[in-house]
């Protein structure tokens, strides 16, 4: 066990965990932030996506010690802004079915539109290829990302 200091959504959190524990389980079990989902445990599905220093990362394969001293953003942090264009676009496009993969989808999309202000379909397909959805919401996700990118430009 080791004491590790994390910056999650701007808040400093001290956790006492095994340093190799994946960030996902520290968020979920230790910090009780369950918006970040467990899907595969191997970085294959994207349900656990968070931002580490602004980059989309699979928290299920990121040892917590790696995230020490870096800025971690989770879906809870992103959703603090009720006017967040991605949240609004996801609602407008009625993206969610079971909804389980959607926090991860939104986090990946947020990292994309932060870099590409006018993403093409190809940009979106490529950025989102690691985020699986079993309910088949993909075309709605793509539309929501395009919509959110447009709104973000106007903000």
């Amino acid at each position, binding site marked *: 066990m080791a004491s590790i200091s994390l910056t999650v959504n701007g808040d400093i959190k001290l956790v006492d965990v095994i340093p190799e524990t994946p960030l996902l389980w520290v968020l979920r079990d230790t910090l009780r932030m369950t918006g970040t989902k467990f899907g595969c445990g191997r970085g294959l599905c994207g349900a656990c996506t968070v931002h580490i220093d602004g980059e989309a990362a699979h928290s299920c394969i990121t040892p917590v010690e790696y995230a020490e001293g870096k800025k971690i953003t989770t879906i809870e942090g992103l959703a603090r802004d009720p006017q967040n264009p991605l949240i609004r676009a996801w609602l407008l496009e009625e993206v969610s079915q079971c909804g389980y993969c959607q926090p991860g989808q939104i986090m990946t999309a947020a990292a994309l539109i932060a870099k590409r202000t006018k993403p093409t379909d190809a940009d979106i397909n490529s950025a989102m*290829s690691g985020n699986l959805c079993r309910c088949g919401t993909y075309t709605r996700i793509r539309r929501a990302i395009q919509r959110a990118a447009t709104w973000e430009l106007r903000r």
Partner: protein
Amino acid sequence: MGVTEMKTDANTTRRGFIKVVSVAGAGLVLGFHLPANEKKFNSEYGDGNFTPNAWLKIAPDGSVSVTVARTELGQGVRTALPMILAEELEADWSRVGIEPAVADPKYGEMTTGGSTSVRVSWMPLRKAGAVAREMLIASAALTWGALRESCRAENGSVIHIPSGRSLSYGSLAEKAAKQPVPSDVPLKDLKNFKIVGQSLPRLDSRDKIQGSAVYGLDFRLPGMLTAAVSRSPVFGGTVKSYDDKKARSLPGVRNVLQIQRGIAVIADSTWAAFQARDALSVIWEEGKASGLGSAGIRAIFDERITGEGAEVRREGDPLGALEKAAGKVEAEYELPFLAHAQMEPMNCLADVRKDSAEIWVPTQSPQWVQGAVAEVAGLSPEKVIVHTTLAGGGFGRRLMVDYAIEAAQISKAAGAPVKVVWNREDDMRHDYYRPASLHRLKAGYDGTGKLTSWVHRIAAPSISAQLFPDAKPENPPYAVDGAANIQYNVPNILVSYSMSNTPVPVGWWRSVYNSQNAFVNESFIDEVAAAAKVDPFDFRRKHLPEDSRLRKVLELAASEAGWGKPTGGGRGRGIACHSSFDSFVCHVAEVSVSGKILRVHRVVSAVDCGIVVNPAILRAQIEGAVALGLTAALKGEVNIENGSAAIGNFDDYPLLIMEEMPEVEVHIIKSNEEPTGIGEPGLPPIAPAVTNALFSLTGVRIRKLPIRLTG
């Protein structure tokens, strides 16, 4: 029969169908009953002795909540069911919410499967809403000293028409609860519907996308421990011996114990439980599935299908007609086992105490969980409370109760609340798979291109024989769903089923046996059309009765897709239609091929599921069914090696990704028929629409899924 014509029967509520169950200060609370299926509906309300399994509450603050025993799996029941009630209630939709029910045997069947939720709840929900509306109107009329006829309900208020005065439902709720429950209430005419038929946003969308929705895996109890289980990789295997020394030495580990299915590690956190589970060394008694592989399963099917099989349908002289046919086609089709691969892995939190038990679980069948846990805990079912949580997908997997049994056994042994968490590999390797199947078909046609004979022999495992070995086999067997009731006119027909059971666990998977049988029917009818040199759309149309609802969706999808016009862009077009769960769906798929890669660009769908409660949810369900069915067509395959599922994670059981998802265009048949299922019916015809399109483009006929192009 259309709803508007049902004057004498369904437009009135029977005495005793609805009860006031309010306590003082609670407003108006009505208890009513949702039947398990349509047939039971009329017999259940005969004598007024019923127990409510659904509730409508109108609180003094004007909020309306509906409590129903159906699991939200992403199919939208938590929105669609309240919409039906709110319509008749003339409620203000912005004040309507839903609460989940707790499992109890007295509430009747609560299983969410078979695309039944809207089908069976339609009339009871409408009646409950109408009864509440009439009681609110009566209490307003009483308040004003006015005639009931001078009042009407609108948007959460009762309005006195002559004076324009109004009273809100909230202010009337207490008084309404003291009104007699009317036995005859008028139901609204379809043309006056304001809520049903609207694409209203889902009630739970915001929570889901903000990460605040609580799925089974997210739920915690104070003092809760987490467990992971090592299970036999070989189906049906048992523990021979195990060494837990290393596992026990790891940090956070509380206990290691043997349960029926394997060895459970109990720890302080999920990660600690996973790590310690992997550190176990277990030697398995492999049992009778040992050594079994996909080839062995195929051999079982081959052996069984050449026998007689049970003739489920025989009309005319199918074999004689084949002899006399102007043209004949024969083919063999084969489909693999499939995993559910819902995004949220199995999990269950159990708190089994000496005198009672409480369970939090994402399940489609809370009462089966209740019964199974009661047995493990040695309690009577009413001592077991089952809380159904939000579920991260289900597709039929959560009808099973294996994960709840494990959790109950571990909690009982540990004497603490324990959440069992499966990782993805556990989930993939210990699924109840969509059955594999083998099909042999023969068809004959005459000189005018008319089908004269159709013979379809099916070999597949029986889900019910494996799950309920002591029960009498159902007749007709579920394995012929969508095969025996093929909708095409053919004078001579034979459909037989050879039950071919294997040690591989099998279960219900979205659309169940329709998923295999529609692929086979709709591919083979395409083969016959090609042999008879008739356009596949014309061939289908010609063999469907003129008033057939399937023919209507076939025609609509074909016309919207531009059937008969050139596709352009090197694309091929294919069509397939199928009826399941009393609904009718046709897909036209456009595909292209480059090397070994098949791309599906566009799917045009036509759907008839009766009255549509929420068109946006319907469209989403069709998109979802297309995605799941397309994944199966392009990728889905669970091979069996040494009695085990030879898959582990999404790298060897890949799902469709974004760039592979086609545009799906959904066209809805306008209908006054009562609503039918929509969760499953979009799935069966997608695979054959795609393979038929591939055939039209390349001449390659796919008779085995998943599609493997040789390039």
